[in-house]
């Protein structure tokens, strides 16, 4: 016998299901008046410093079908790479946003400011936005990151960990035009997105 460790184990995840919108973005789900507005409507307030950008994309299943029921959350630092709560963080940047795939087209859209590179224990991470994706059929939320093709990504400590270099592309948003980027997520298939376990 030994002494006992006193750790608890994490509660198991369960799928968010097809009606996640009711709980997380009820106004989007047509349930008005319970809350004044949906949580995380925008990651920025008026006056946030930095370049305004829009990221558009879809979440595709293994057959190439865009999910109509996915909900996404994003988390990011401000234009100088500071997260809300850190000293020197831009008070106009909450950094958190919730958005959903369109029920008709399956397309999502995130309007924010481009984050700055952030200094962390593991080094300087290139500008990126963290995404968390939940939906029916996804038993535990999927984490990934959006990097930008017009930023310097070669020294990023996370991207450097990806052995198959062509898969790095799955984490890099493509510039469509000034201030507009495309970021598609593939749950399976030849272009399966790199999902994270951090």
């Amino acid at each position: 016998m030994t002494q006992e460790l006193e750790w608890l184990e994490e509660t198991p995840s369960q799928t968010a299901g097809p009606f996640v919108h009711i709980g997380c973005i009820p106004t989007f789900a047509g349930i008005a008046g319970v809350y004044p507005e949906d949580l995380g409507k925008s990651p920025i307030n008026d006056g946030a410093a930095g370049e305004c950008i829009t990221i558009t994309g879809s979440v595709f299943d293994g057959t190439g079908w865009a999910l109509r029921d996915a909900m996404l959350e994003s988390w990011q630092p401000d234009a100088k790479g500071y997260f809300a709560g850190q000293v020197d963080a831009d008070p106009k940047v909450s950094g958190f946003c919730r958005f959903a795939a369109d029920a008709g087209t399956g397309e999502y859209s995130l309007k924010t400011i481009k984050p700055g590179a952030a200094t962390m224990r593991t080094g300087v991470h290139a500008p990126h936005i963290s995404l968390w994706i939940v939906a029916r059929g996804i038993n535990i939320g999927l984490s990934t990151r959006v990097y930008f093709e017009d930023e310097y990504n070669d020294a990023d400590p996370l991207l450097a960990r990806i052995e198959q270099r062509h898969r790095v592309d799955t984490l890099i948003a493509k510039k469509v035009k000034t201030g507009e980027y495309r970021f598609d997520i593939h749950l399976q298939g030849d272009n399966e997105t790199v999902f994270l376990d951090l």
Partner: protein
Amino acid sequence: MSSNNNTENDPLIPRNRANHPVVYDPEYKTSVTRSPKLPLLSMESTLSEETGPVFGHNLIGELDNNLISNFSQGAALAIGERIRVHGRILDERNRGVANTLVEVWQANAGGRYRHDRDKYFAPLDPNFGGCGRTMTDEHGYYEFMTIRPGAYPWPNRSNDWRPMHIHFSVFGSGFGQRLITQMYFEGDPLIKLCPITGTVKNQQQLDRLIAPLDMKGSRPMDYLAYKFDIVLRGRRQTQFENKPQGS
């Protein structure tokens, strides 16, 4: 938003995926095309996972944690068996997670969600929306008043039914602690038949999703109570942390 947690920015304890559902399960058909096939990329958490949104208690309206009356804003009560759901949000170090947002959603007493895509013919309750939220107190406690949701059939295999359940969404203090799960009710015979609960292959872990009836937490002639604790990922904390060798 502001920082209110002195453990902020400590590294997260790596997630033990064996505590979670399998991602691919042919019995839960939708998971077949929506489960990644390639290994996840693992590395130590970074600020992107160790920090996260912090919400204030001022976010929460007076009726937000009362699903019986929040849809009508107090004008009328929802139909169903009145219950109080309460518990604690803890971390792996067995400490209460203070001031964190807990959101819930559920079907009405007939097993019908107030959602465009729910085509089940059980009627909507005009006084039930199905969403609620609250913040934990300084010890990690939370509570909701609601009605017990009904079981309902769903399109999967030819005759699958969801056991009675309440969906929970919890934040913690870092984005990497984010968790969505479901609470089931003690004694529901549908739990062991459901392919979604069945994605949790570890029986001990599945048991932790089943809330016991809590008679001492109930109120005579008013409501029954169920207790549901949730454990989020914890953070490593030692004096040897985050210091370069030799300093």
